[in-house]
């Protein structure tokens, strides 16, 4: 049996709204992301990048076409399958979305403990290790309010990575950061992704990231208009 790519989109269409205001946002999208590849999704504002990420991330119901994640169809999948799919993914949002009353370690632990059977102690150890990887071993017990923007986003990266997800989805993870922090966060994501063989799909406009991508896909008005492949993964 042929081994399928971790992310496969076929004939994906998506609409927003109902009745007269019903508007198509995604048109006949096909996409295949090989295991361990780093793909950048580009395009002007409103071109449908976020919509694609939410569809791939099982955060939005697939209406027409097919989204296959690790060989599992998300179209018409039930809530349990969607939850399973979400657990295969490390999300990094534009806003860090850390839980304000949890420390850095506790926030990261939540990423580990979503996998059933992960007890407290191992989750804590994994969280410490992940925070160490993102260079925050000196901020383990800090609450988010005591961390800088870049540090918070690094905690979010640690939270996304701690469960060793097969897939990383990131939506402009550096948009809210200054140049140095942005470079650091992207560096981390690319390096750790490569080390772990994670398949990464990232929306970004950051030019410095583009040169490190395996694939660059450009969306315009919900259509894939260009795919550049820098090297075969």
């Amino acid at each position, binding site marked *: 049996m042929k081994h399928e790519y971790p992310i496969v989109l076929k004939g994906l269409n998506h609409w927003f709204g109902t009745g007269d205001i019903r508007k198509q946002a995604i048109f006949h999208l096909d996409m295949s992301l090989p295991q361990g590849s780093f793909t950048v999704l580009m395009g002007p504002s409103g071109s449908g990048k*976020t919509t694609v*990420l*939410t569809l791939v*991330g099982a*955060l*939005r119901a697939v209406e027409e076409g097919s989204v296959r994640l690790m060989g599992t169809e998300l179209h018409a999948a039930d*809530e349990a399958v969607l*939850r*399973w*799919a*979400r*657990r295969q993914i490390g*999300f990094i*949002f*534009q*806003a860090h*979305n*850390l*839980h*304000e*009353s*949890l420390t850095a370690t*506790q926030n990261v*632990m*939540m*990423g580990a*403990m*979503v996998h059933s059977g992960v007890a*407290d102690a191992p989750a804590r150890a994994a969280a410490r290790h992940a925070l160490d990887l993102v260079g925050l071993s000196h901020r383990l017990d800090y609450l988010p309010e005591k961390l800088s923007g870049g540090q918070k986003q690094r905690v979010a990266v640690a*939270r996304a990575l701690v469960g060793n997800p097969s897939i990383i989805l990131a*939506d402009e993870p550096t948009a809210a950061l200054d140049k140095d922090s942005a470079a650091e966060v992207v560096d981390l994501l690319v390096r750790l992704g490569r080390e772990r063989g994670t398949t990464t799909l990232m929306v970004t406009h950051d030019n410095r990231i583009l040169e490190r991508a395996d694939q660059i896909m450009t969306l315009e008005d919900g259509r894939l208009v260009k795919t550049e492949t820098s090297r075969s993964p």
Partner: protein
Amino acid sequence: MSRILQFLFGRLPIGWLQLSHNRGRFIGALTGVAFANLLIFVQLGIMNAVAGATLKPYEFFTADIMISAEDANALNEGSNVARQWMLMALSDPQVTDGIGLLVANLPWERDTGSISLTTFGIDPGMTTLLSPDIASRVDLLRLKDAVLLDRRARSIGRDEAAGIRPQTPLRFESDGRSLSIQDTFSGGGGFGGDGYLFTSDQTFLSLFPARQSGAPDHILLRVHPFANVAQVIDRLQNLIPDKTLRIRSYAEAQAQDLTYQQRQKPTGVIFGFGVLIGVMVGLVIVYQVLSSDVADHISEYATFKAMGYGPAFFMSIILEEALVLGLLGFIPGVMAGTGLLALMAKVTSLPLTMTVSMAVTVFVGTVVFSVASGMVATRRVIAADPANLF
């Protein structure tokens, strides 16, 4: 706290961390829950006191069956009963003893103010129908104008009561008649009177000339130790021609009196409403706290959802929060309630106390209601759309 919850839920105590993160709101919420608990405790305390005070006089007698007039909902209310029904009842082979109980209120002008004593007139020869406390002293009532006084009656001091003995009786006047208190027994102030008095039927009739020995307020009966009370009652209902009479077991009479005091008398109904209002205040507070907590953290909850957490997880967080609020609000609530009831008991000489069953009821109720309002608050979390996070 953190450790207990961690153990209880087998995960990070997110609910606790979230609640205690906003200290001002947390303390406000706990104060609110404690206040609602206090309100309920005071009302329940009063309701219990109503019950205690209602049932107290029944303890003076050891009857199995009570015969009362149709409209006699309580010992000191309603019409009287013909004494001949007692004689008829005694013809039943299983009825061993009977007594006519005369009841009236007797005023006593004291230096500290006027009190009203619920006075029982009985045949001093019928000791089998009296509690040991009364029966052991009932011979003293054979003297003319002799009475036994409730030593816990309102405004009767401990030293004053201790000085009353057959050798040194205390005389007092009521409506121009001189009475002699021979001894005391243990009763207690209630809502209908300030205490109790026992006297012989003879003295009673001379105190209340309008009353007649042939028409006591209630008839108390004792049956054979192995008799089936319900069957005896059935037979008496057939035997006694006056079908308007209430012939009830003594236990049933007490239960119905209690129901009457709590459900039909305005005071009982008002205190019942007080409990309801306390419950509602508590519910509103807990719901308010939980739902605004949910609203404040909706994007964090949506993040958890995007990470793959399901409804059970969110419910357990809200449950944890409800548990924390219920538990930590209950502790100051029960302490303040105990103190306030003790203070009120001192002032009113009503049997107002915090009981274990009250505390347990309110605690369980607080947690159950907190969890219930938490469940309502969870619906918004479960509806939170993770797609709006990006």
